[in-house]
């Protein structure tokens, strides 16, 4: 009797403990709940990491691959076939709008890929904005065909050997698995668009309700194949203003605050909120348009690099909350070359400017209005630094869409941006420094070097990470020597976490990962 009472008491205590929701303040609303149609980081936090699982996943807090919905994967000898062995016992969410009759199998994986890959799929018409990331990450170019081998095996036919496949298969936009059964149900009902508002996934959380631009509620998926969530409800409170996020955390309305601004962190001193910082897969850089007069001269570009004071830039623009960058690859990216250094040498820079034959022509720095840093201040610092080495620049502020268009067309001399990679060094180099990137408009340096392209191609075709690291080491040194761009900073990212929350760990992908998180 005593034992039963104790057990009941314990159960009640556990139930009470589990009843508390994990409340998270994020800066924006998700675009929708069909992650494949989206492209935003907040949608990854709210949907990609909660409602859906991917075929491959990352070990928590690292860039190391671990099995996800594919429990094993093997490559054919010619590197053109990737066979995925699916995890058995994976349950789709049971919701008021869908009751699954079976567990996940190869049909679901084939369906998930086909709706993005097949131009004739009825789902293409549903995604009116297209599957942007399927094309944007290069997944569409990589895969020739997707085949079901048996109920629990899928084979991907690749167009050419592609070492990026693991990264692409861990990407939330490309590799989240949808229920083919639910897809068929929606098509049959003539309401396929509901996939974007009534999602069904296999992830650790089940969609419960969404009040537009206000609150998203998810509940724990009790049949989850992995370690079950340690709390019943996840509540995402959309709080656009960074200062208000601070106040909500201090008042205990939110237990986790995402994407906190460095300048607001002082507000947490002496409170129950602690800040976790992370140097993510992100690099700030200055792109030098190598097709412009003077900037086509390597000596002139080297001079701009040597004459740029990163220490004062970090202090003035980032309030000291960033690390100086020497390589385009950030420290959290495997193959990052630690041996590269970033020198500030005004005298040598002046000598190089003179040697380049620069005649005092004024160069234009394009920068955006708004954004994560004060663009005007940043550009004016560059202007002041380069004035010291005798180079004249003028600052041209413009709206983001305008800047994308004009820099894409190569109308700028200089511009500066941040680039976020997806876990593979190629995701930094290929879009920003390849010849193909010039025509696509996102190589803002407009630098096309055949030897560099060949190096990237060799690295992409090689499945051995050790050998790829060596090749990317060469690539980093080539960029440091040729200076098509100047890596400026590795910005720090901040997540505020109430001490009540246990086990939260910042991710190098700067997203929110709720695996292993618990509440007392």
């Amino acid at each position: 009797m005593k034992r039963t009472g104790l057990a009941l008491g314990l159960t009640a205590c556990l139930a009470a403990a589990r009843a508390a929701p994990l409340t998270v303040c994020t800066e924006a609303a998700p675009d929708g709940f069909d992650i494949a149609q989206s492209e935003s980081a907040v949608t990854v936090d709210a949907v990609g990491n909660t409602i859906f699982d991917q075929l491959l996943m990352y070990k928590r807090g690292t860039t190391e691959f671990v099995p996800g919905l594919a429990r094993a994967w093997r490559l054919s000898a010619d590197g053109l076939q990737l066979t995925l062995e699916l995890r058995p016992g994976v349950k789709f969410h049971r919701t008021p709008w869908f009751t699954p009759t079976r567990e996940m199998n190869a049909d679901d994986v084939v369906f998930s890929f086909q709706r993005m890959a097949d131009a004739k799929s009825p789902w293409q018409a549903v995604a009116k904005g297209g599957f942007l990331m399927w094309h944007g990450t290069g997944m569409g170019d990589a895969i020739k065909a997707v085949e079901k081998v048996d109920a629990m095996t899928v084979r991907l036919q690749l167009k050419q050997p592609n070492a990026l496949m693991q990264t692409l298969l861990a990407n939330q936009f490309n590799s989240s698995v949808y229920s083919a059964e639910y897809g068929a149900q929606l098509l049959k009902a003539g309401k396929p668009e509901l996939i974007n508002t009534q999602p069904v996934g296999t992830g650790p959380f089940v969609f419960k309700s969404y009040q537009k631009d206000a609150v998203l509620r998810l509940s724990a998926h009790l049949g989850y194949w992995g370690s079950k969530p340690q709390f019943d409800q996840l509540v995402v409170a959309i709080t656009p203003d960074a200062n208000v996020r601070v106040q909500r955390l201090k008042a205990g309305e939110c237990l986790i605050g995402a994407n906190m601004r460095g300048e607001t962190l002082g507000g947490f001193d002496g409170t129950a909120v602690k800040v976790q910082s992370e140097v993510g897969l992100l690099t700030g850089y200055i792109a030098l348009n190598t097709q412009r007069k003077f900037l086509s001269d390597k000596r002139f570009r080297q001079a701009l690099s040597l004459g740029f004071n990163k220490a004062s830039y970090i202090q003035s623009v980032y309030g000291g909350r960033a690390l100086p960058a020497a390589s385009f690859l950030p420290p959290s990216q495997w193959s990052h070359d630690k041996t590269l250094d970033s020198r500030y040498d005004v005298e040598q820079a002046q000598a190089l400017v003179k040697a380049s034959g620069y005649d005092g022509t004024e160069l234009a720095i394009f920068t955006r209005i708004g954004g994560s840093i004060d663009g005007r201040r940043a550009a004016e610092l560059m202007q002041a630094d380069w004035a010291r080495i005798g180079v004249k620049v003028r600052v041209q502020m413009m709206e983001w869409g305008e800047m994308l268009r004009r820099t894409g067309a190569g109308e700028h001399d200089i511009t500066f941006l941040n680039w976020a990679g997806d876990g593979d060094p190629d995701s930094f180099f290929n879009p920003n420094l390849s010849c193909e990137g010039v025509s696509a408009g996102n190589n803002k340096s407009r630098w096309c070097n055949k030897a560099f392209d060949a190096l990237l191609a060799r690295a992409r075709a090689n499945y051995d990470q050790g050998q790829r690291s060596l090749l990317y080491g060469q690539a980093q040194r080539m960029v440091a020597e040729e200076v098509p761009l100047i890596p400026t900073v590795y910005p720090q990212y901040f997540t505020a976490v109430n001490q009540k929350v246990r086990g939260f760990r910042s991710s190098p992908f700067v997203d929110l990962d709720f695996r292993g998180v618990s509440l007392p």
Partner: protein
Amino acid sequence: MFSFFLKRLGLVIPTFIGITLLAFSLIHLIPGDPVQVMAGERRLDPAFYAETLHRLGLDRPLYEQYGIYLWKALQLDLGESFVTHEGVWSEFLKLFPATVELAFCALLFATVVGLLAGVLAAIKRGTILDHGVMGISLTGFSMPIFWWGLLLIMFFSVAMRDIAPDFALPVSGRIALEFDIAPRTGFMLIDAWLSGEAGAFKSALSHLVMPSIVLGTVPLAVIARMTRSSMLEVLREDYVRTARAKGLSPARVVFVHALRNALVPVVTVIGLLVGTLLGGAVLTETIFSWPGVGKWLIDAIGRRDYPVVQGGILISATLVIVVNLLVDLLYGWINPRIRHAK
């Protein structure tokens, strides 16, 4: 009266076309298209780009796009958001009640406090009270909304938790996160009441206090100053002197005889403020994480979400046109001279 109605209605049609043209051309004048903005710095495959533009109908000539937009708008089809792929009407209807709820409470606060402050200042003209009330109203009028909102949050939500926790107000949102209230009307106060959940209504009410004060501060200052000057004029009138001479109580003289007459210009101003409150709540919505129409439109402009911008502006402007039409008709009904004026 019918011909007057037809005349007013005749004016509405060109106004409506003008608004559609303005909303369409302004958003298309901003450089960059939605696909480009969505892709950001990422690689945009030219074939995919062209195909997406075609799917969104953005590869057609502008006049054709405008024609399609106008034709669909006449059939009440405003299209769907490029970003969320949800219907513009559906998104608007989800957010508009929040904006109306906030604007109504802010106006209620501004009217009640503003009238009282204006009357007090008028009857105590030249005293410290008068100068104090007018000084405060001028400060309120000049206050930056963002600063004022944060100041209130820091004091009433955060510091108050240590001083008097029972009186602490929530930082932001429409209701405490533990309440999952199903939207029936979209008005959180009503939905919370209908839900029957213990504490839900109180929570919704407490979440309205600070945003209403912040949004209502500027209108309050306007109403207080307008009431004061109007009251001062009325208090000098003969009929007020007569009322006093009759021996009526000062309260009756002020609130029944003077205020009623002083209210005419004040009510006109309050009417004008309704439009301002509905359209100008963007900052308040941002500070208090209030999911309203203002922030929705601003976000849509940033992302070049053409259907949302065009549709949102069209609905908001149509509402203003309809209200104005009703007011015009009301004036015409009240005052026949307006009806017959050439």
